[in-house]
């Protein structure tokens, strides 16, 4: 009986350790803790070019992550990129005349949407639109322009 009890304890410890490992992976390692798919609202912005932006790219305001990109699609009429963003429910007071820009975190880092709040008294609602946008800076384009300019100056 004694032997069997120690065995039970060891099996219990093993299973508990395994489940603890899974929880560790889920909570400490992955993004589950910031998983807010349910609560929040969606806003849309149209960009001339959304560059390397991807679904799940962060949306931040003043450097703080307030949501993520939920969908990116192409508008065949206006040839624009339609970016849908899911904003966490706790940030309800984003003014209507907010500017959305696509920036790159670091030189080679991933791209994210940065919201710069305007001064309007009305706030963005669910399925609201951001009118003022600034496209992603395409590095190749910028380098091309720079080279072109310096060639012009030399003439």
């Amino acid at each position, binding site marked *: 009986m004694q032997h069997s009890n120690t065995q039970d304890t060891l*099996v219990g*410890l*093993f*299973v508990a350790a395994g489940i603890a490992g899974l929880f560790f*992976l*889920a909570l400490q*390692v*992955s*993004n589950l803790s910031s998983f807010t798919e349910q609560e929040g609202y969606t806003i849309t912005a149209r960009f001339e070019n959304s560059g390397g932006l991807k679904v799940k790219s962060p949306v931040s305001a003043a450097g703080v992550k307030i949501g993520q990109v939920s969908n990116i699609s192409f508008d065949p009429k206006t040839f624009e990129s339609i970016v849908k963003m899911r904003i966490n429910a706790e940030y309800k007071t984003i003014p209507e005349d907010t500017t959305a820009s696509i920036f790159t975190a670091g030189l080679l880092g991933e791209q994210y949407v940065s919201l710069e709040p305007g001064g309007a008294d009305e706030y963005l609602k669910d399925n609201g639109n951001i009118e003022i946008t600034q496209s992603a800076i395409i590095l190749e384009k910028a380098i091309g322009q720079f080279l072109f300019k310096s060639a012009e100056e030399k003439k």
Partner: protein
Amino acid sequence: MLAFIQTLGKNTRASFTKLGRATFFLLHTITGIIDIMPRPRLLLNQLYSVGVLSFLIISISGLFVGMVLGLQGYYILSDFGAEETLGVMVAASLVRELGPVVSALLFAGRAGSALTAEIGLMKATEQLSGMEMMAVDPIKRIISPRFLAGFISMPLLAALFSAIGIIGGQIVGTGLLGVDDGAYWSQMQAKIDFQDDIINGVIKSLVFGFVSSWIALFEGYDAVPTSEGVSRATTRTVVNSAFSILGLDFVLTALMFGDD
């Protein structure tokens, strides 16, 4: 020439009959799981010998694999000035690939070979026939609990392997090499996705647990009941498990991480 074709045909037929036997064996084992539900003691004993006894080798290997990943990753990433992303590299490679695969290989070597030898010896010493004589179904009484124990233990062991590996990478990365501790964790949390990475890793280890327990138990049950037969069956278990784990890993990876 004729002899060659004859051997080819014989071998093909032999491998197909073996596959057929293995499938029936598997079905019998799975239906047997229902019958061991009222007797959890059988399962508990097997969880001890399959899971608890593999615990030490899995955790120590996980620690060292994580530490090596930390070292190697640091040397390569520091060339690009991207040491901060060490956490992502360690966690992604462990959770997606190394955790499930290496722990399954260790599991096949540690627990699978033991299972084959045990069942093979039971068969050689006619314990299994003895049970049949007493109208006890040896598959239900002996095989099913072991199969279920392997199936349950594998994801737990793989999760432990990954978790301990990530901590090992952190010990080396932030403790020895001076990567920022906050960056190690926050980059990891930003990039590792619960659905895509963790759940897929768990699915992988469930598949590996299923396959390697199946192979180990079937090889034991199907062994030629002599000392030589048991020894060959044990070898086959380890070799076949390794092959199927690595082959299935490729297929699963292609299916899971294909898009994006």
